[in-house]
């Protein structure tokens, strides 16, 4: 942890962050008002706000704005939950059994850095243009992240803790349950948190697959009509939703592993 963290209180950090964001929006707004930039290329915040309120009532392409938010969230969560359910046990198993790791590692390492956009043509051919292919793309990205993180989490079990367990007579099964898994929890959470980020990032790629709904699609669609206000609204909503998802995971992490970083 940073040593400044104690001297620079948490409340003050939040206040400074809020002030920074407010100042940024005010400057942006003033810039628009004084004609510093072309509103067609960079619409001022009040115009984006107005567009947002308008779309809340009228929707975008016949569908309410919140529907687009919800369907994007649904895709990410729908991919993310199975990715965690499959990825955590499989990743832990990879960390525990070198043979399994040796089998899966080449595939994991090949697909993980691969830009998921490159998979779109194949995914469309194999899974069609429906929801399945979109969710699948996000699922793959999140899964690979969780796999790598969880495999590393058990691989890095603390030697002295293992020795302690052995000295107290723990069987291998007890070592896993009492020492290895609880010890791996912080890293598991970190990988899950990364996976949410990766999943949310892949959303745009997924919604390029013949979509007609969702925030990612909305951004892409509005750009072809030069509706930069809608593009920016979509970007802001994407950012805020991702931010909230992340905060949710962090809150969960604090509740489950309150000792992380303190011991």
């Amino acid at each position: 942890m940073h040593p400044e963290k104690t001297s620079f209180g948490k409340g003050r950090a939040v206040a400074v962050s809020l002030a920074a964001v407010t100042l940024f929006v005010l400057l942006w707004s003033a810039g628009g008002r004084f004609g510093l930039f072309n509103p067609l290329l960079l619409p001022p915040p009040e115009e984006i706000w107005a567009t947002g309120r308008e779309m809340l009532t009228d929707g975008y392409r016949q569908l309410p704005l919140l529907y687009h938010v919800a369907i994007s969230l649904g895709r990410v969560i729908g991919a993310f939950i199975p990715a965690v359910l499959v990825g955590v046990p499989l990743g832990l198993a990879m960390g525990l059994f070198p043979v399994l790791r040796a089998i899966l590692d080449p595939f994991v390492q090949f697909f993980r850095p691969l830009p998921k956009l490159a998979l779109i043509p194949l995914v469309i051919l194999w899974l069609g243009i429906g929801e399945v292919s979109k969710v699948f793309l996000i699922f793959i990205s999140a899964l690979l992240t969780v796999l790598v993180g969880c495999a590393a989490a058990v691989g890095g079990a603390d030697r002295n803790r293992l020795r302690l367990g052995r000295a107290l007579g723990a069987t291998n099964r007890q070592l896993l349950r009492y020492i290895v898994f609880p010890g791996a929890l912080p890293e598991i959470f970190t990988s899950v948190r990364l996976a949410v980020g990766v999943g949310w990032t892949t959303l745009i790629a997924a919604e390029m697959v013949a979509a007609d709904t969702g925030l990612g699609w909305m951004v892409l669609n509005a750009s072809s009509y030069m509706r930069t206000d809608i593009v920016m609204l979509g970007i802001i909503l994407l950012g805020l939703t991702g931010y909230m998802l992340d905060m949710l995971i962090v809150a969960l992490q604090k509740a489950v592993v309150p000792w992380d970083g303190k011991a």
Partner: protein
Amino acid sequence: MTVPASDPAGSGRIVFDRVAHSFPGGSGGNATEAVTDFSLDVEQGSFVCLLGPSGCGKSTILNLAAGFERPTRGSVSVGGRPVTGPGPDRGMVFQDANLLPWRNVLENITLGPELAGRPREETLAAARRFITLTGLQGFERHAPYELSGGMRQRAALARAWITEPAILLMDEPFGALDAQTRLSMQELLMSVRQVTGATVLFVTHDVDEALFLADEIVVMTPRPGRIRKKIVLPFTRPLVYEQLILNAAFTELKHDILYTIRRPEYDI
């Protein structure tokens, strides 16, 4: 502590017989010999301190007795049987308390009995006893990260004691504590040892600590570690630290040991 009749050596006796231990070298390098030709008979119920410069293989000796490592040559036996691996007959206390951060103080102390499947009531009764002995009352529900270094080490001692091992293996357990805390922990160790009577093999590089705690001090040479000198201490227990340091024998022994460790060429 009772010694089973079928066990003439005593379950708390540790015998090192011409032990050598090497660690595999790094990429392509030669193996590093940590200890060599190490023979020592730690009698049932005695308190032996391994003293030596850092890197002399003291901890390796402890790990061999614990069964975490196997000797490259020679043999290690506990209670007359060769050591094949770790076991609950040998309690381990580490330099950092090594408490499990996801368990509170009470849950850390009861870990051993829980792993052994002991009845809950019996375990809690034993835990209460050792919580009182170690002065941890009121801290049972605290998380390890809420405790000071000294309190953590108290919990680690209670955790090792609760399974009533015949042997306690302690690897510089008080090395990270401040001087006052260290002294009170040493006193705690001595007083509880009167109750539990376990054999203690204690690694330290602190000469004062060894003189205060041990029945016998084993001074080791730098790597590869071998026994340089064995000193049976003449003090009668119980000892009071403030009086011990005025004892002429204490001063003389400390002088000898420091010369042995720091200036081997003098060879007193």
